[in-house]
């Protein structure tokens, strides 16, 4: 096995290249070949009829966040501030309160994500020791007419469901 140096050959000095038309017709053959193939079968064209046809979203896709819940519907988050600490963009703001149902000591009373600041790196998911925050909603387009509505709070984060079932999500490597 070896790495060798290859001196690039310089083209353009031959007679056929100089007379221009011969090579141009050869080039046209390539282009017309594409035209012919596309006329016969246009299924291979790289065109997606968005928004009617959505792009493929895979289990690893880092979409908009959501907060997960226990089976009884209570919030999994224990307000440990790990996601907030690990966030390179500093877009998560948590306020902790006392938890009364005995599942843990703390619970977030506020959990805000500023989606305009978020860089969708997935570091919050990686940092979470409770599997309480995920980015598996499949929402890839976050748009709005005002800044306030892309500042999502705990209710909206809890209300959004994941786009994949548990098995599929785990298969993604989480």
């Amino acid at each position, binding site marked *: *096995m*070896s*790495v*060798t*140096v*290859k*001196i*690039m050959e*310089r*083209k*353009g000095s031959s007679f*056929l*290249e*100089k007379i*221009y038309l011969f*090579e*141009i017709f*050869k*080039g046209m053959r*390539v*282009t017309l070949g*594409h035209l012919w193939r596309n006329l016969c079968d246009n299924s291979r064209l*790289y065109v997606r009829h968005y928004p009617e046809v959505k792009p*493929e979203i*895979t289990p*690893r*896709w*880092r979409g908009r966040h959501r907060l997960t819940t226990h089976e009884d519907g209570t919030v999994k988050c224990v307000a440990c501030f*790990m996601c907030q*600490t*690990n966030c*390179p*963009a500093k877009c998560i703001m948590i306020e902790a309160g006392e938890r009364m149902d005995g599942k843990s000591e703390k619970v977030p009373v506020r959990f805000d994500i500023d989606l305009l600041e978020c*860089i*969708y*790196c*997935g*570091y919050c998911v*990686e*940092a979470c*020791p*409770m*599997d309480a925050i995920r*980015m598996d909603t499949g929402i890839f387009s976050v748009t709005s007419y005002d800044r306030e509505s892309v500042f999502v709070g705990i209710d909206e984060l809890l209300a959004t469901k994941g786009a994949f079932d548990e098995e599929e999500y785990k*298969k*993604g*490597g*989480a």
Partner: protein
Amino acid sequence: MNATALEKLQAAFPEATISTVLDSAVIAVQPERLIETLSHLKNDKDFKFSLLLDVTAIDYLEYPVAQEARFALVYTLRNWQKNMVVQVRTPVHDPDAGVPTATHLWDSANWGEREVYDQYGIRFIGHPDLRRILNHWQFKGHPLRKDYPIKLGQICYETDSMEKEIRARLALKGVSQSTMQDINTEIMFLNLGPSHPVTHGAIRILTALDGETIVANVNEIGYLHRGFEKTAENLTYNQVIPLTDRLNYCSALMNNIAYVKAVESWLGIEITERTKFMRVVMSEFFRIQDHLVCIAANLVDMGGLTNYWYLYNEKEASYDLISRLTGARLTSSFTRIGGMYRDFYEGWEADMENHIKNIEKGVSDSYKLVAQNRIVHDRTQGVCVMSKDLALSYGFTGPCLRASGVPFDLRKDAPYYNYDAFDFEVPVGTKGDLYDRLMIRYEEIFQSIKIIRQAMKMIPEGPIFVSDHRVALPPKSQVYGKIEGLANHFKLIFEGVKTPPGEWYDSFEAANGELGFHFVSDGSGRPYKVKVRPPCFYIMGGFHEMVEGSMIADAVINLGCINIIGGELDR
């Protein structure tokens, strides 16, 4: 660096203290002896450090260990024949008085020293054009000094006319005042950019024209400067990875790999075999993406739109694999210190083979349109020539340097990640014109495909992370179930991966050339200083040499051809 080279260095500089850090030698000298040392290293036949890779400074204001002076200046040099890297360090006692410039030795020192002046406020005595480069001209203070308040937003209210600079350049070219005023030979000034389709981003090219011929040219960069280095100082080592995506965004994963490779080499971590092969496969795949963008955009500039579809369609399709693998199309953030974020997904081999087959087809089709086309030959051959010596002097690396006839490629000359186990060719040009630069990228795509095919056959099974608890996050099952795992997880996230105190430089062959990282660590989990050596910064520094004497239309395709990427140019 081997022992004999080190002995030679010590013999040549008996007064200096020489130490080795990783593969490079560090020579510490006093400012009075700096230029003498640099010039000896460049001109002596034993050393011949013909490439000045980077110039940077360090502000030790908050460094826990006391240093000789608050600032230190570091010149990173490379001898490409013997693959030796040397860093020359000197303390700067008085930044306002400054240190003598090295611009007469290497042309790349011009932009390198300007950046140091801009970011650290260190003056260079005798520098021909000492002004800001990344920050705007109305900026106050020097942002990479440790006492600069990070939240101080400074706005530029007026554009810099750059009249002084272009007139100085004209005078250097021998255009006299009377020529400029004569109605027959009058010079016209024209701005290309900052916001213009040909600039492929935001960059300002100010030209002085005689008819359509460019007589003099000066450039203004920094429109995309967002303070990567300052931001990184306030984040842990792992948190910087998403920011490296935004350096060269055409090949985000390569930056991720280059960054973690630099940190791992200092930590002394030997990553697993599977990770090495994964990194090779992905970095070659992204090298292809980068070249596809470059060639496609370049040929559009030249008027060959059909090529764009053949090349860009395949690039677009490749994002299927990239998003399945990394979870995002553009900002991959796929590596971590000590491994990869995730393993390959099930069935990636088929996807990869499918993509590279299509890319091969697309690139071959485009090559058929271009290779023997006289229009392309007439527009590119002998245009915007960069000679070998000039390219080295301006600090060119990567395809642009190889186009000028220098067979230097880090994958060949300083192999990492088992690159010496692969069978591939490094294409080298002969003239250093636009044609060579274009054709080299075509050839590199085919070579990268060759490497991917070999690596896919050789890739072993196994873990993708090292099992070092100081570096790698514990598996989630341990975090959820065991207190030790949880404590380990908390400690790593809160404090970051701790690196031993010290300074080091490590480099990687990215799509555009040598992507280097100079780190300073104070022993904590956050870098005390990170300096990126972006390949296209120095290539852009030599842009005027290529275009002066050419036509405007040539400057346009030359800009596309050197593949400047605003993200890494301006950081």
